[in-house]
């Protein structure tokens, strides 16, 4: 309960900061939309020449693409400050601040920022799903909606956990933003059907850095209704295992943290 109240205060605080720099944040969101729109233009040009991409129709590709943005944008919206841990906060010794407060450090770091740029991605995601879903005849049952909610939570956890883990490395090395960046960029592989990649890439994005479970696997379940155990179960398992691991690394990191003497 206390954390919910705190979160409200943090977001209110953040929105005040936002109003101060509203033009810049608006531009950030516009930038995100333009980035996505150009990617889609690229897909449109490809599909103007071929009827289907190794068996996937344009609408199906758009659905998977839009689906991949759900977890990505939610993670972006709520936990963007984790980037700063690896890039700046630890290196500049600013992390001391979090240690002196009577709330969980990880919660505090995450709650401090609320990244509105993510609205660009959220908007694109809604547009894509809104365009593709009516054109596809998706199997719909009473349990589809609860399953979707579960997938969204655990898929977002996959993103967040990878960011927590990699930014916690900075407790030992002082800076780890580049490591976060390197792992995070693999998420782009999940925007397309996994069958376009070779075996190595498929294995890596399924079992090593399981971004495929944030998009392709669950999306293919919602498209076809096949393989629920692997597609949905895999997302839940990947999300929970990674999150447990992330908490472990973070706490070990905190124990090893030494302030950056000046």
């Amino acid at each position, binding site marked *: 309960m206390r954390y919910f109240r705190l979160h409200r205060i943090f977001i209110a605080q953040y929105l005040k900061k936002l109003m101060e*720099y509203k*033009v810049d944040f608006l531009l950030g969101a516009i*930038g995100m939309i333009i980035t996505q729109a150009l990617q889609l233009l690229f897909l449109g040009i490809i599909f103007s020449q071929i009827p289907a*991409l*190794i068996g996937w129709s344009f609408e199906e590709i758009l659905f998977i693409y839009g689906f991949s943005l759900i977890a990505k944008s939610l993670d972006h919206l709520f936990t963007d400050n984790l980037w700063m841990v690896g890039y700046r906060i630890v290196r500049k010794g600013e992390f001391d601040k979090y240690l002196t407060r009577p709330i969980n450090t990880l919660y505090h770091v995450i709650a401090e920022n609320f990244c509105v740029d993510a609205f660009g991605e959220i908007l694109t995601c809604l547009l894509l799903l809104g365009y593709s879903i009516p054109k596809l005849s998706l199997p719909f049952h009473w349990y589809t909606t609860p399953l979707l909610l579960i997938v969204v939570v655990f898929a977002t956890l996959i993103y967040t956990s990878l960011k927590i883990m990699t930014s916690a490395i900075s407790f030992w090395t002082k800076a780890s933003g580049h490591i976060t*960046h390197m792992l995070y960029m693999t998420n782009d592989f999940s925007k397309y059907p996994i069958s*376009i990649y070779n075996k190595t890439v498929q294995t890596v994005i399924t079992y090593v850095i399981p971004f495929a479970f944030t998009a392709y696997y669950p999306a293919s379940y919602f498209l076809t209704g096949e393989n629920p155990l692997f597609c949905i179960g895999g997302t839940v398992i990947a999300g929970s295992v990674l999150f447990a691991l992330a908490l472990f690394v973070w706490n070990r990191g905190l124990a090893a943290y030494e302030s950056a003497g000046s």
Partner: protein
Amino acid sequence: MSRVRRFFRTYKPFTRAGMQEMIAYRANFICFLIGEIMSAFIMYFVWKAVFLSTDRETFMGFTMEDMAVYLFISFLTGYLTYSDGAFSVGEEIIDGSIAMRMIKPCSFEMCFLFQELGSRIISVAMIFVPMVAGVEIYRCAVSGFVRFQIGAFLLYIVSLLLAYMISFYFNVCYGFMAFFFKNLWGTTLIKETVVNFLSGAIIPLAFLPSGLAAVLNILPFASLSYTPVMIYMGMYSTSQILWSFGLQLFWLVVMFGISKLIWRGAVKHLSIQGG
């Protein structure tokens, strides 16, 4: 002659500093590069799937082999011509340290240029040779014979250098806008995406509707990446190469001129916040 010598003596320490900085942060640089190059690999797989889905040998005039070379060489070109001196200008304006630069007896943008060249020397040494070699080995493996042409490669280097200089002055102009906006993050994201698109890094300009492609070919952005890559691939005839060198030189002069004009105007407007 002595003026030239003095010029290089003044700016040599900046080049050295740029090199040292790059070497000190090489782990960051390599991780960053791996993260960025993934997008080229994703596109490679997407294109492979496209060629698998059609029975034609070419897609809008590109074979799969051309496409792979295009993707990786345009990644390399974009990477090497990327210039972010602008971002430091913005930061220095916001924290006011730009004042220190203005009282020093050296040219403001030359300091940035020579520092960045220093870091470029290191990155060329680390990625240029492996990437070009990788692309050529791929081409050789796919087609069965050596496709590497030394003439096209040398012309590519010339075009690449021109592209870098255009990019540098373009970004100096852009960085000066911080004098007026005092905030850069969102605009940088937009600028980079739009420039990427206009320069053909996302979609080869030849794939766009012909009217649009013709306009984009003349704009300065094609000179940043598309032109050098096409020259590398041997897609341009001699007259086209001459024409595009001329165009690149023209845009370099224009960007240089604009950056000077803005600098003159900006000095009048500058107000250091706080301090």
